[in-house]
């Protein structure tokens, strides 16, 4: 038991060493690992994840607000966006190769399709959950429909929307590990090319991706808390 635990710890120590110090590749000839390379891959990983999540927000939030406000068409929209999630991202990438080639655009699009459904669904549900009395009061005060959306429905749906973004962002960060299969060198390269980086590199890659996902999760959890309008926060616990 102790031996097993020690072996476990030494695996982690080796992975940490891989992150901070360069070493010769398992296959020889080149230096791999080390902080500079790790930061390069991390930056690429964060960049593609942020762009994909950002685009998904830009598409899903307006659509979700519109559908939620109108209260119809959600079955169609949610069914369509769920198709993006049902098809594995790797298959999407292979499919897009014919039209977009491989590279940043291709991977981003595949990740956007992965990120859309939770944001769309949460936006729609968030808007539908707004107390009808509040909307009626707004209308009574003479707000136009677009003002109802912007000044009542959107603020009150924000916690739910951020919950959706949080789910999507974590999915995207985890899935961006396949990007090296389509020309973008993210942290996934450590996991996919273990023959080059060795088992230490693979474990280091897995640890870094997990850390990144946890960081993203915590960031959006904080955002979600901040997004709760003060009036609601008094009524119920945040989140």
């Amino acid at each position: 038991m102790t031996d097993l635990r020690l072996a476990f710890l030494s695996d982690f120590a080796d992975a940490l060493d891989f992150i901070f110090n360069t070493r010769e590749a398992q296959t020889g000839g080149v230096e791999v690992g080390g902080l500079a390379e790790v930061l390069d891959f991390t930056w690429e990983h964060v960049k593609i994840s942020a762009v994909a999540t950002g685009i998904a927000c830009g598409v899903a939030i307006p659509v979700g607000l519109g559908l939620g406000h109108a209260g119809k068409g959600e079955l169609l929209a949610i069914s369509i966006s769920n198709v993006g999630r049902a098809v594995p991202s790797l298959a999407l990438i292979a499919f897009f190769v014919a039209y977009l080639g491989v590279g940043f655009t291709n991977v981003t699009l595949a990740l956007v399709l992965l990120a859309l459904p939770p944001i769309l669904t949460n936006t729609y549900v968030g808007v539908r959950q707004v107390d009808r009395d509040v909307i009626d009061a707004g209308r009574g005060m003479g707000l136009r429909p677009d003002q109802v959306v912007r000044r009542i429905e959107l603020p009150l749906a924000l916690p739910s929307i951020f919950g959706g973004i949080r789910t999507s962002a974590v999915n995207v960060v985890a899935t961006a590990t396949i990007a090296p299969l389509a020309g973008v060198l993210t942290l996934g390269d450590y996991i996919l090319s273990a023959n080059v980086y060795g088992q230490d590199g693979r474990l280091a890659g897995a640890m870094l991706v997990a850390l990144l996902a946890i960081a993203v999760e915590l960031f959006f959890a904080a955002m979600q808390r901040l997004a709760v309008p003060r009036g609601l926060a008094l009524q119920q616990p945040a989140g």
Partner: protein
Amino acid sequence: MKRGHFVALMAALTMLACGALLAACGDDDSGSGDSGSGNAQLIEANPDNAGKEITVGSKNFTEQFILGEIYAQALDAAGYDVKKDLNLGSEQIALRALKGGDVDAYPEYTSTALTSFFDVQPQDIPKDAEQAVDEAQSQFADEGLVAYQPTPFTSANAVGILKEKADELGVQTVSDLEGKSQDLTLYGSPECRQRLDCLVGLQEDYGLRFQKFTPIDIGLRYDVLDKGQADLSIIFTTDAQLSTRDDVVTLEDDRQVFPPGNVTFVARQQAAEEAGPDLQQTVETVQEGLTERVMQELNARVDVDREEPRAVARAYLRESGYIE
């Protein structure tokens, strides 16, 4: 051999074959009683092997699936109690599974074994297949593993290019790319980027600089050529496409960056001893027909015709007369 023994043996053989190949028995006429005797190569079930369990592994791509199936089905015909674990992933995972006892044996390329497991530089790999195997065998032996005789076919990486493009550029060898490569895009597996027997070797040994190297899923290695994204793509010499298409050619590796790899069946010493002599004999017999041409054809049946590796392996064994 006494007549009674012979009948008993045949009955045992038929039962074993049917029992282990239940699914296969349903869709063919192997129950008709045609013994197929007279074929010297036919693998006969040895009653001594009954109850001896062998788990055959393989890595996770077409050629490996087919090889794993061929060995597994042949050993099954020899009377062993065969289990399969044919999707182990990369060689590092396969080696771990082998040493850890999850599998008893799996097919590995001698070149891969020497470079990935035993830190041999690609240029130091013996060009002669027998020598490469000898070296791999002695290295494996230190690890408590035995490597059997190699397959006739050799599988290596190669620089693939559309024939039209090759004619346009006037290139036949990798060296011919000199002075042209800076305008060409090269695609290969993510691993290729940092391997001496891939991009690094092309850069250092040939002194080539490419416009861009793009890592891709190896499943897309022909797609990127077809779609015009890649001028050059790293492919394998046993690829099905090379036997079925004449618009793709490989550039001759005139400075030997890509080491040739024959396949050797690697088993754990202990498992091999427990299995007895039939293991080695069966393995080395069934692979005799596996030339480069045959391997390309078998790969083509899976990759192009979308047949199951299991069925393709069975057809090979049957057509070669190893099983009925």
